[in-house]
């Protein structure tokens, strides 16, 4: 017995060393991967503090004397207007997506009617269609309807494309809310709308917050529709603005562009750090019922 243990000891230490090496290698790979994710943002930040000459001399070097001129220029350019446009589009679209997802998801979850499964499948399919496949039809449709190039133009595709995932998440979440709450409210004297918005909606707040956050990111960063459907300078959004403000035919103001990108990232970063827990929950919302 004792001999067995003695024989096993070197084998154990060898496997411990192998495990330690595997751990170090694994962590090194993950560390390098994290750096590749974080570095572009860090690089973008310190490059935005350089002059164009400094940037042209060395794209990777740190700024010799950091300057904020690029930020002042970015804010003083049309970027401020573009940011406002993006902010308005995001606020209205997300509000509509949350409201319509909740109401539609509630009805799909609670009521069994003819065509209910077909309707649900229709929304599911909506999640599978890539935006780019619909750019041209959408352009023609809006052009024919005379809805192009206006403050509300982008709201239509944003809400339309945001609804499927919102509805699927809301439907699943509402399914886990006990029906007895609605019945108790009905007996208490609450009408349908009051029950929907004062009992069920507050209980669905986690999934509605998740929908709001996910869609805020999507709408804030949206590029293809904003590029195709908007031509007037007054309605251009920040992502499209970034590609035009700091570029001319033969020249790109990279430090200025970096400053512009950093400016548009700030609201998104604030939202992310404030609600990162909810975002994680939102990613898995609806995965498990109840």
């Amino acid at each position, binding site marked *: 017995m004792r001999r067995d243990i003695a024989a096993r000891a070197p084998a154990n230490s060898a496997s411990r060393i192998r495990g330690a090496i595997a751990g170090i290698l694994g962590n090194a790979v993950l560390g390098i991967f994290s750096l590749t994710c974080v570095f572009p943002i860090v690089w973008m930040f310190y490059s935005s503090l350089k002059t164009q000459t400094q940037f042209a001399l060395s794209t990777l070097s740190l700024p010799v004397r950091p300057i904020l001129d690029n930020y002042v220029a970015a804010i003083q350019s049309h970027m401020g207007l573009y940011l406002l446009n993006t902010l308005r589009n995001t606020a209205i679209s997300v509000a509509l997506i949350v409201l319509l997802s909740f109401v539609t998801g509630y009805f799909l979850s609670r009521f069994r009617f003819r065509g209910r499964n077909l309707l649900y499948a229709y929304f599911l399919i909506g999640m599978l269609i890539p935006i780019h496949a619909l750019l041209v039809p959408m352009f023609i449709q809006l052009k024919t309807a005379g809805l192009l190039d206006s403050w509300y133009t982008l709201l239509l595709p944003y809400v339309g494309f945001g609804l499927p995932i919102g509805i699927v998440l809301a439907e699943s979440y509402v399914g886990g809310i*006990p029906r*007895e*709450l609605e*019945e*108790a*409210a*009905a*007996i*208490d*004297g*609450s*009408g349908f709308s*009051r029950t929907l918005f004062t*009992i069920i909606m*507050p*209980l669905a707040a986690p999934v509605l917050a998740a929908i709001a956050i996910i869609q805020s990111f999507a709408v804030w960063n949206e590029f293809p529709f904003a590029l195709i459907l908007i031509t007037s300078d007054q309605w251009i959004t920040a992502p499209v603005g970034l590609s035009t403000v700091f570029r001319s035919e033969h020249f790109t103001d990279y430090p200025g562009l970096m400053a512009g990108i950093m400016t548009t990232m700030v609201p998104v970063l604030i939202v992310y750090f404030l609600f990162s827990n909810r975002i994680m929950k939102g990613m898995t919302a609806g995965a498990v019922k109840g």
Partner: protein
Amino acid sequence: MATVELKNIGKVYEGGVRAVDNANITVNDREFVVFVGPSGCGKTTTLRMVAGLEDITEGELYIDGNLVNDVPPKDRDIAMVFQNYALYPHMTVYDNMAFGLKIRKYPKAEIQSRVKEAAGVLEIEELLDRKPKALSGGQRQRVALGRAIVRKPKVFLFDEPLSNLDAKLRVQMRAEISALHTRLQSTMIYVTHDQVEAMTMADKIVVMKSGVIQQIGTPLELYNNPANRFVAGFIGSPPMNFITVKLREEAGKLIADEGDSQIELLPRQAAAVKNLAGKDVVLGIRPEDLIYDDKGGRGIRTRVEVIEPLGASTHVYVSTKKHQLISVVPPTIQFKVGDEAVFHPILDRARFFDVETEQTIPV
């Protein structure tokens, strides 16, 4: 206060599934009526039809003399306590209790006084600022009761309200609900699958099976005079023993032949079932009416299978070649598994059931 009357009430779901069939029940003013039966017997569906949460397919429902088939729940002046409490999780206990009154636009002072009064009755005053998630099961049940009480409705409906509580708390809440009924003097309808709850709380019990009412009566009526084998077996704990016997005449007497044991029927019983001589009937004997004979006379010969000492009494599970029986004996009698034991039925309290229809044969 109010009466509730169900006339020929039926419920048929889509696909033709009949959940309740021709229910006729009268709940008198201030009466505590319990619907009892196994899962799927239609008791909850019946209660939900009274509440207005299920459409009534057939028949008429009257509350306080008014036909309410098409009246929505909020206008029926009822309150309901649900099995899972159904408290609004995002509201405090106070808001939960006040919700119905706020909707009905009661003055703030009136709402406050009613909630405080109900909280005092249920001893939950210190919980009024808490959310439901910060309450124990028993406290949640009290809040659910409080939400019903503050409205001062005509009829209280309870849908298995104690099912989610542990055994000790269930006994305590059972007594409290009974006390509440005495205090409020309201009409109450209570659904449960637990016959002990039904027996201990009800003024009147409605026993249901497969959507059909089996019998309506006071607890002791059902216990002593069950209408059929189902009611006899469902009401009473431990359940009634059923012994299939062949009746035969012997020297002018009627003998119930169990196979191993023969039981001579009483003259009045013999007169009542004489026409069934030569046929099988089911003899129903309550466990407390199956008396152990330590002298081993000519009773039912059995073998002891399981012994359950409860302190105040002992449940003894015994078997003959054909039947498994239960007897409740004093704790002073000691058995060992495998013992041979003879039991005498108290024939005067025995019931007879038709083998095919399972209806009680009057004796």
